[in-house]
């Protein structure tokens, strides 16, 4: 089913390329010439990325997140160490690979961020408002959420994504997320699929993974959260979606909203089998 859809899309892509290049033979000759320049650029960008890999400031977030996880906080003055992230209370290692997941205690499908909110409310006694207050850090504003996310994701490094998606609500979320992926709207007619529905595409010099193809979905999902050098911040997957929709010219995606989790379910499950390598470092 999935494969049929993919090959259909690939075929459509091929047809589109032909339609474009039939404009004129001269244009084709021109484009192959300029592509050589493009390859050189791509090679240099690759060198830049490798040089970045040399030291990842996300480590600073991971260290802070580990402290926050163990620190007694909130009205109940307890740590998060008894939080069940999906593999049982206190199990951090590998937890990121099974999320999003349906939790009996909350009755909801939760991704890592919404699960942390639940634990902060249920274990530590924070209000929902308090727990969701500062999801994304900025200059002189440290987000506890992003630090916790960096620590927990980091504890799944080297482990394979393994989202179940079998529970009925998980299945529903997957389907809703898929619908959302193709939902065009706004001033620019963009959907997620505009940029992430075909292979070999890039915006400016940034490669755009085709999130409908397993290998690319794996590579993309397993490198979030990530330190963004353009922002000097370690960003969570919730932030990745939030900022994609901003650039898509959509209204503001609410932190840990149902739509954000449904879309994460769709993308995480498509990445099953991919080996986690986050927090990564990106431009």
């Amino acid at each position, binding site marked *: 089913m999935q494969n049929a859809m993919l090959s259909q899309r690939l075929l459509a892509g091929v047809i589109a390329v032909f339609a474009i290049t039939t404009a004129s033979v001269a244009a084709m000759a021109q484009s192959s010439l300029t592509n050589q320049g493009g390859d050189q650029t791509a090679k240099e960008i690759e060198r830049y990325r490798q040089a970045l890999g*040399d*030291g990842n*400031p996300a480590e*600073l977030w991971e*260290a*802070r997140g580990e402290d926050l996880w163990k620190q007694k906080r909130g009205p109940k003055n307890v740590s998060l160490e008894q939080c069940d992230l999906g593999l049982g209370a206190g199990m951090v290692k590998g937890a990121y690979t099974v999320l999003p997941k349906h939790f009996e205690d909350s009755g909801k499908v939760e991704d890592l961020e919404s699960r942390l909110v639940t634990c902060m409310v249920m274990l530590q006694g924070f209000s929902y408002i308090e727990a969701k207050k500062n999801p994304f850090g900025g200059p*002189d504003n440290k987000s506890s959420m992003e630090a916790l996310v960096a620590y927990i994701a980091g504890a799944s490094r080297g482990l394979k994504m393994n989202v179940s998606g079998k529970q009925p609500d998980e299945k529903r979320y997957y389907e809703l997320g898929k619908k959302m992926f193709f939902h065009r709207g706004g001033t620019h007619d963009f959907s997620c699929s505009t940029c992430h529905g075909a292979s070999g595409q890039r915006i400016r010099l940034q490669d755009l993974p085709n999130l409908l193809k397993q290998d690319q979905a794996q590579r993309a999902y397993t490198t979030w959260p990530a330190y963004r050098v353009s922002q000097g911040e370690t960003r969570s997957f919730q932030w990745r979606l939030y900022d994609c929709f901003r650039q898509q010219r959509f209204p503001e995606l609410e932190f840990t909203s149902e739509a954000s989790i449904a879309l994460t379910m769709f993308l995480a499950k498509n990445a099953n089998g991919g080996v986690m390598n986050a927090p990564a470092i990106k431009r």
Partner: protein
Amino acid sequence: MSDPMRIRAILNGDKVDVRVLMAHEMETGQRKDAAGKVVPAHFIQSVTVTCKGKTVLSAQWGPAISKNPTLSFKFSGAKVGDKVIVSWTDNKGDKRTDEAPITAPS
């Protein structure tokens, strides 16, 4: 106040490979905040790395060093277990010192 540095000092042959990651805004003094006000410069000005009481590297930095700076270099004359001590001071007078023992390659 500031987060601890991450320091790695690994003995490769007779040389110690040092990598340091620091948590600092490295504000240039040119950026404007959302309200259009210039954010004052705030950056690390000096860095000193010592081992066994001897300075193995010192540096002066301007605001053009990237946020959350990294630094790597090599020195000789130390063994596994010796401590590498890194200190920085910024233009507001804030300071931080962290240390890490030299380890064997894993």
